[in-house]
Each structure stands twice: as C-alpha cells, then as structure tokens.
C-alpha cells in the first residue's frame, strides 16, 4: 500500500503533549482529550470543529487525563494533584481535588466504567513509599488499597499501570523502573505474579485486553527503554471459594521483536484487537499486527518523541481514529485499517 499522511493535525502553541484519550460521554459528540506538559492544562478537542471546546487550566505539567462516561474528566499532574473535573459546556468545575505524594512519571490508571458496577471511580496513582501505588476511590476520597511490594523486591518507581476487573476482582498491572511487571490482587494487596524482569530497562508503557477465548486471561504488549517489544499472555485464576488463595501466575512471553532504535514511549491496542500502535523516541509511530507483531506501517510525521497514542472507538462519521501526541507540540490524527 502507498504512503499515508495524517488526516489533520491539532496544536496548542508551545505545549508538548503528554496524554491523549478519546472521549464520547453519552450523547455528546466525540472529543479528544489532550493533556500538556509545562502549564498547558487539558484541552477537549472537538473532532467536528477541530477546535478546543473546553480548556482546563493548570499550573503544573499534566501527566494524564481520562474521560468518564458520566461526563467527568480525571486529570493528574506532576505535583500529584488528582482532580475530578465536571465539564459543563465550555466550563470546567473541580469536583474533587486531592493531593498524592511522589508523582513521578506514572500516569493515573482509571478503572473503566464498564468494568465496574459499584459506581465508584477507582484510580491508581503512586503512593507514599518508593515503588508503592495507592488505589483510590475518587468520589469518596479514600484509599482502597496500598500496593506496597513485599521485602526483597527492588523495583524502583512505578512507571505505568492499568486496572482491570477479573471475575469482579480488581486486578492492577504495574510496570516498574527496573523492568519488572507485576500483577496485583488489589483487594488483598497481594502480588499474584512471580515478578520476573522482562527488560533490562524501565518498562515505559504497556496495554492489555481480555483474551476472548478465556475469561480470566489477558493479552498484553509492553515496551521499555530498550528496543524490544513483547507480547505476553497472562491468566488469573481466582478460586471461587476463597479470594485469599489466588494462585501465582506468570507472564508468558508469546512473541518478542527488536526494533532498530531503542525507546518506546507509548503503546495502545485498538479495541478490535487487530492492530497496536507504538510511539517511539525516534519520533516515529509504528503500527503492528495484533496477532503476529508484523510491522504494518511507520507513521513519520512528528519531530519529537511520541509521548502518547490513542485509538478511538468506531465513531460515527469518523471511523476508527488514531491520535498521536508528541513533544513537538502537535497532535496528529490518522485513519488506518478502517474496514
């Protein structure tokens, strides 16, 4: 197939992009949420008008932003401010604001609504101690669990995390600075994986999705500051009788590929499980096939590290989009493999 170019490019002057998420809450039209470094705050880009519909200002550099189905946006910045912001038209109102310690590089991990029936907003952010993470109930501003690695683990900072529900048990996946990935039973604050190091360098990013064939298993892709990209498979068996006796499972590496240049800053799986996208330190976005990790495309547009990539759901009149945000202050939006 021939070369590709972005559909369009969004840009807020002078602010490097740190996080992107598509957001379509209820009846509202689809937005693209973008958080910026420095004091750029968060923008809600209207995908129709290609303009910022709402701007959430911030004094600190933003780390991440996430849109809830209920019409709120969760933002997290480098000073550790975790906020729940209600969007009313062009106006943003802070509903909850709490300070967390030790914000480093780790983005806030929000449990997606469709995973949870309890209506609580569960968010994981770094905790007080080195290597620890706290899971908050954001609405009630209360810490549900503290995920402190047991003695003997020298993990360094948490770098990236994800919350999922497996058989209505909350499970946290966390990638650490020393290259280890751990799986946590959140409710019991227990590690349920062996904790082997996948990389020699920090885990920079990962994404996972359910294995459709096996309820309790997930496929995941993770990447680090090295030039390796790993696809793994992990099973979580909670015994029905007692949650306490959950078994220790490990990540099974299914495939491993090496790129020429090291460093992948961001990675996402598209919801249809056909492709994944990675954004690299070499300014390039790469598309791989989900199944075999076969390289499919290299998107060369940016002139800075691609900090974040995001896939949209299949949006009416837009199709499935891919947004890439980079240190060069630009957000490029692409349309790929829309069947």
């Amino acid at each position, binding site marked *: *197939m*021939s*070369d*590709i170019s972005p559909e369009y490019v969004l840009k807020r002057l002078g602010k490097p992009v740190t996080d992107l998420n598509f957001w379509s809450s209820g009846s509202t039209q689809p937005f693209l949420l973008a958080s910026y470094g420095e004091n750029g705050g968060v923008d809600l880009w209207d995908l129709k008008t290609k303009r910022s519909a709402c701007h959430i200002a911030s004094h600190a550099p933003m780390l991440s932003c996430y849109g809830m189905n209920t019409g709120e946006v969760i933002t997290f910045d480098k000073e550790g401010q975790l906020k729940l912001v209600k969007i009313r038209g062009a106006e943003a109102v802070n509903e909850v604001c709490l300070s967390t310690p030790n914000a480093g590089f780790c983005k806030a991990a929000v449990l997606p609504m469709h995973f949870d029936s309890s209506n609580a907003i569960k968010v994981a952010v770094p905790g007080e101690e080195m290597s620890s993470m706290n899971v908050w109930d954001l609405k009630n501003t209360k810490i549900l669990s503290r995920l402190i690695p047991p003695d003997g683990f020298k993990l360094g900072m948490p770098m990236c995390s994800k919350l999922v529900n497996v058989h209505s048990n909350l499970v946290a996946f966390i990638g650490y600075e020393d290259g280890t990935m751990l799986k946590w039973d959140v409710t019991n604050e227990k590690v349920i994986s062996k904790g082997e190091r996948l990389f020699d360098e920090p885990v920079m990013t990962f994404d996972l999705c359910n294995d459709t064939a096996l309820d309790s298993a997930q496929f995941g892709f993770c990447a680090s500051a090295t030039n390796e990209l790993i696809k793994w498979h992990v099973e979580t068996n909670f015994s029905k009788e007692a949650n306490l006796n959950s078994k220790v499972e490990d990540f099974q590496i299914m495939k491993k590929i090496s*790129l*020429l*240049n090291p460093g992948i800053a961001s990675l996402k799986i598209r919801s249809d499980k*056909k*492709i994944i996208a990675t954004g690299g*330190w*070499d*300014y390039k976005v790469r*598309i791989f*096939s989900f*199944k*075999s990790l*076969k*390289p*499919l*495309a*290299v998107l*060369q547009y940016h002139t800075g590290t691609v900090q974040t990539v995001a896939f949209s759901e299949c949006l009416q009149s837009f199709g499935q989009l891919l947004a890439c945000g980079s240190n060069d202050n630009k957000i490029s939006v692409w349309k790929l*493999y829309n069947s």
Partner: protein
Amino acid sequence: MMSTASANRSTRVCIREWINKLESNEYESRVTSDCLLHLIKQKVTKDDEQLLSALLENIINHANHDWISSLYSEVLVFDLLKNLPSEFSFLLLMARLHELSIGSRLEFVVSVLEKLFIGGCYRSLLVQESNVSTTSSHLWSKMITCIGALPDHVANKFQNPTKFRFFHSETFFIFLGVEIAQAISTLADVIKNGKEIKTEFISLNIGHFCLLGKAEYLFKALYPALITHCESNFLWQRIVQKCFLSVPDRQLESVLTFLFKHAPIPHCLPPILGDMVTKKAKAKYIILHKLLLLSNLSETTAAENVIGYISRLSNATFLLTETIKKLLEAWGNKSSIKHTTYQQHKYLTASILVCVGHLSRHTADKQTDGLLEHLMAGMRYHLESPDMKIRKLGMIVGEKVTELMSIPTKKDAKLLFEYDCDDETVKLISLCDPEDKPTSDFYQSQLNLFEKFKDDVSFKADVDDTTYSVAKSSFMEMAKAQKLQLTTAKDEEDNTSFEFSRPDDEVVDSDDELTPYNLPEEAAFSKASKPMYIRDCLEGLIDHKNQEEMEFCLTNVTHLVEVDVVAAKEIAVELFKVILNLQDNYAIDNFVQLRRSALCAVLVCNPKEVAEYVTMEFYSEHYNLQQRMDMLDVLVMSAGRLSTPETDKKGKNSEVQLVGDVNPDIDESSLPWQQVVEKRIEAKTKRFGKPRKPAGKSNPDQFGPVAGYFFYPLMSGYDRRIRTLDLLGEDSIILGRLLYALGTILYSTANSLVVEKMASSLLEFVAELRHHLESFVRKACIYCVSMATVSVPNVTRLLSSNAFDCRQWLCDVIKEDDDEDTRRASANALGLLDAKVRVELGMQAT
C-alpha cells in the same frame, strides 16, 4: 706363522691356477662356476686381493654370455664378495662399472652391486672404518666419491629410468641414510661394550653426500632417526655430535643449512649438534651469520631453528644478545632497507622477533644496553619508508623490542602502534612465543617416519605391495561411491523434512489479513537535524559542536553542493578550506572518505578557483603530510569526475521529453500548419533502409579549460624546501604521490587540446626526478611516462625530443634497478610506448 704363510701361498697358487684354467677353457660356464664355488671355500687374505680382483675382472670381462645372464652367476659372485672386505668389493665392481659399456655384463655388475648394498655391505663398511685402529686412507675419499656418484653413473650408462630402481638418486640416498642410522646404532653397541670408535668416516660420508646436494634424500630417513635416538640415548648423542663436529669445513655449510632449514622443531637440534656453535668457528659463522643474515629464505623456519637452537645452549643469553644486536644492526641499516628485497627484510624481522621471544624467557641478566640505539635508528628509517609493509615491520619490531627491554616508563605504559593485523603480522607476532617442548608423541611419530622409509627402501615385497595397493585403492573408490550415495539419500530426507516444517510459519502469517503499508528503510535514529542549506552546513562545520552535527554536515555537504551549485560556487573556496582543516575529533566512521568526497564535490562545483587555492596551499607551510596527500587525492578525483562526460543524466531527461513529443493525443489543430503537413508527409513516406539514429548528444569538455589550474602549479614548487615539507629530502612519499597525481591528472585531460603541452612538461619534470634514490618515486616516474604515452594522441610527435631519452632511461631501469617491481613496471611502460609508436607508424603489432 709358517702355516698361515703356506696357506696364503697355496691360495695364491690356487687362484693363479684357476686363471689359467679359465683362459684355457675360454671361460666355459661350468668351469667358471666351479672356480667360484671353489674360491668361496678358500680363505682369501689381503695379500691375495690383487690376484683375486684380476680373476674376477677376467670373469666379468670374458665369461660366457650364457653364464653371465644366468641367475646363479650373480649369487655366486655375491657370495664370494660378501666374505671379502667391503671396500675391496665396492672398488672392484665400481671400476668395472666405469669401464664396461651397456650390455649384459654391465647389468650383471650393477645387480651384484645392488645385492651388496641391500646385503648390508655399506653398513659393515661404515662400522669397519670406524674402528679406532684404522687410519684415514686415501681410499676413503675415493670410495665415498664412487658411492656418491653411483646413481649418476648407473643412470648415465643405462639411460633408462625403469631399470635398477634401487639406484635412483632418491631411493639410493634414502637407503644410505637408513644404513648410516643402523651403523650408528651398531656403533652405540660397540661403545657399550667398552670399545672406542672414530667417527671421521661417517662424517666424511655425510658431508660428501650433502655437498653433492643429496642432503634432502640422505636425511629423509636419517633425520627422524637422529631426532628420536639422540633425545633418549646418550650414546647416540655422543656419536652423532662427534660425527657432525668432524665434518670437514668445506662440507659443513651444506650439512648445517639443511639441518637448520628442515628441523621440524628447534628442540631436536641441541641433542644432535651439541654446542658445536661454540666449538667450531666455521660452524658459528655459518649458523649465526650466514643463515641469519646472508641467506635469502622465504620461510622463517630456519631462523626459528637457529635461534631456538642457541637458546638451549649453556651460554644462551650471551649468544642471543650478541645475535639480536647483530640482527638489529643489519635490520636498521638504511641502505639495506632500501636495497634488499622485502622478503629478505621480513626474514630478518622474523629472526629478531624469535630472538625477542627467547630472550624474554631468560629473565635474569638481560644485557640489552646497546639495543636501544640500533632499534631507534632502525625504527626511524622504517617509519620513513613509503612502503606500508616496511613501516609495519618497523612498528612490530619496535613494539616487541621495547617490551623486551622494559624501559622504565609510566606504569604499564607500552609502545603501541596502530596497524592492520593481517595474516602476515599475526604470523610474525606469533614468532615471539617460543614453541613448547615436544611430547613423546612427536618422537614416536618421528620414529614411525624412519621405519616407514626403512620399509620403503627395503625392496622385498614389491609385487605384493602393488597388488595390495591396487586392491586397496579400488576398494576405497567403491566405498567412497557407496558413501556418497548414502549421504545424498540423507540430504534428500533432510530437504523434505525442511519443506514440511516450512508451511507452518506461513499459516501464521496468512492469518494476518492486514496488508502492510510501504515500510521505509530502517535507519539509525539521531536527534540532530539535517542542514538544509549549504551555508548552514558551512556554519555547522565551523562550529562542529557535537559529533552528530558534524557527521550530518559532512555527509550532506556533497548532496547540498550538487543541489545548489550557484550558492556553493560562491562559498566554494571557504568551504574547501574549512573541510580541509577539519580534524577527526569525534572518530567518525569513514571520516577520511567522507571528507575526501566532500572536498571533491566542492572542487568540482568551482574548479578554477578552488584548484588555484588547493595547488597554492599544497606548497604552503601549515599542513601535515596527510592533508597534503588528501589535497592530491582530491585533485585527482575531481579531475577524473570533471573529465567524464555526463551523458547519463541528460540522456534520461531527453528521453522523457521525447515521450512528450510523440504524444498521440495532441490535437492536430493546435499545431502550426507546417508541422501538420510534415507529419502527414512523414506518415505517408516509405523509407527503404534503416533510419539514421540521432548521434548522442555531446557535452562540452569540462576539464580541458581548467586542467592547467590543476596541473602546472603542482609542479612549480617541488624544489622549494619549507619547514614542514621537504620533497627532495625525507618526504619522498609525498613526492611520489605528487607524481602519481600529475600522471593521473594528465590522463584525465586526454582528448583535450592542452594535453600535448602538459605531457611534454610532465616528461621534463620527470626527467629531473627519475634517478631518485627511493624506488617508490622511480616507480611514480615510470607511471608518469606511461600516462603521457597513453594520453597524447601522437607519441611520435610529442616525444621526438624526449623519446630516445625516455626509452633509454626505461631500458636502463630494466637493466640495473635494485627493485624488482620497478623493473617490472618499467618493462610494461616500455612495451606500452613501443606498441603505441608501432601503431602510429602503421606497423602491425608483433
């Protein structure tokens, strides 16, 4: 006393009677046999020998033809002779051999001789003459000469190589070697029994055969025997050492040369030769002087053996130090570096390295005082040489010898040079590690070798041997064929299994229904941005803040210059200056090539000004030799590029236009009417014969007009001496390169109008330099002459003044130049010149 005398008398009488009887019976077969049978039983003493030899002579000369060719005649004579002293039998038969002409009598004599040798007469002769009571007689040398000459005599007489295989030079001398070894073994037993022996006779034998040039065969079996037995047996050691010590001086060289050249390991020499080198001045001269300094050997084995040998003697350190001093002196001699062949010089270097290796083992008492002086001078001359290989030798020796001397420097600081390691250097460096003591396996293998040769020359189971070998070889062939079949069958199996395994992978792949986009070629990522304009590039090169930026600028200069010629032209000289002075601070890969191609691009875009600048700078002060060589290289490269017509690019363009021209969709009405009419006429005209193809478009010669700027200024200042450049002195390497550059530039101007003038001035220039001391420069001069020959359209006109001169010089070089390569180059140039003249004069090339 009386009884023996009477017995003697009776023998004598008896022989006389037989002589008469034979004569009267005209040597009838039966009588002859009877006579011999009778004599075998008789006891013959020394006094009767003369008479007996007369009898045998008569028999051989006159005996009945039938008798001579009968089988038992040989046996009878052999039986008679083997009981007599060997020297008598040998001399008698060999005298017959000389006199007889080809025929059955001669064959008879030779086969008796063969029987005698195989029967061990030679061995018993050796043992007998080693008896302490014998005195060296004049017969010795006569006999040894005769034996040594036997193969030649037999070959000359019969002129038939299939006859008497025993007397083939190789077989015969191997046999003698085996016999000598066995004689020594017997002598060892004699000593064991408390008797003394003399070794002069054996020494004479060995010496004489070696002098004849048969050492190779003689030692084939003997050497392994000596090596094995001298290692383990003290008596052997004594005898053998004495043997070699008493080899006469005039024969010593051929013996020692062979021993040292062919010793499988240096360890085996000391037991064989003992400390001969200290005992005998001649031996010392041969071993330490001739073998190391004067012989022209391509293999380093001899040097290794010589030095390995002396390093195992009692006063090794002294000898080694003395030797290395001598070697270094010869090695560092300026004129020898220039005038000996590389091969020879390498041999010298190898010797030094072996010496270093052995000396470093003798840690105590290193007398390395005088070494540094010789080394330093030598190294300097080596490093100055224009020949890379010589320089490398200098570096290796420098490193190793300083390491040996362990000059007190900073901690662990060593003299280290940078040079490419090829096979040759690795081999040379490995010489510094002396070989280990051989294992018992080695001696066993040497013994086996001796046994093998012994069997080879034993001449017994000839027929069986061949039948066996034929059977064996045919069996081997069959087995081979079967094996081959087996393996091919196996291979096929492998192939099929491989094919089976393959589709699995494809299944996985085909599952991926997504087609990839065009994937760009992966390139290593770098953050620096590429310079977009030539001026940015220039600035980047001046600042060169970091490695990436500099690398980018350097790689992109060529491209940018080609893209924007106008802008590049403006700043060409400045750009050239900056790039020329660029230092490789960041150790960029291919820095030299990158810089050179960048310089070349700049020079090509503005040849006149830049060439003027370069040629001026070439003779200015503030450059190092590498930069000057770069200048020459760049000039040559650009000249080449400018003189190549750029047909490719333009050809493509015109083709594209042509397609546009014949576009059939053009509406006719839009064309002017003349074209429409022409088109119609063209369409209706029939042409017979081929349409003429348009001649290729010619481009104006780009180089001709500017060639002068490249050429003349380079010749202008060669005799000017500045602080950093002395072309006529020590920087002859630059001078040579300059000549090569001039020659090539001249060649680039071929076909232009200026070439004749340039050629004649180049020849004049060369005339002044062609007797240069350095062969590199002389070769460059020859190159220039060749280039002038090929470049000018008409040699006869151009060279009318210089022709005889140049030709004469080339002839002289062929005749008397020191350097072989130069002579060869000169011969080529001469051939070229002559061929061209012949063509111009309309003669057929011979």
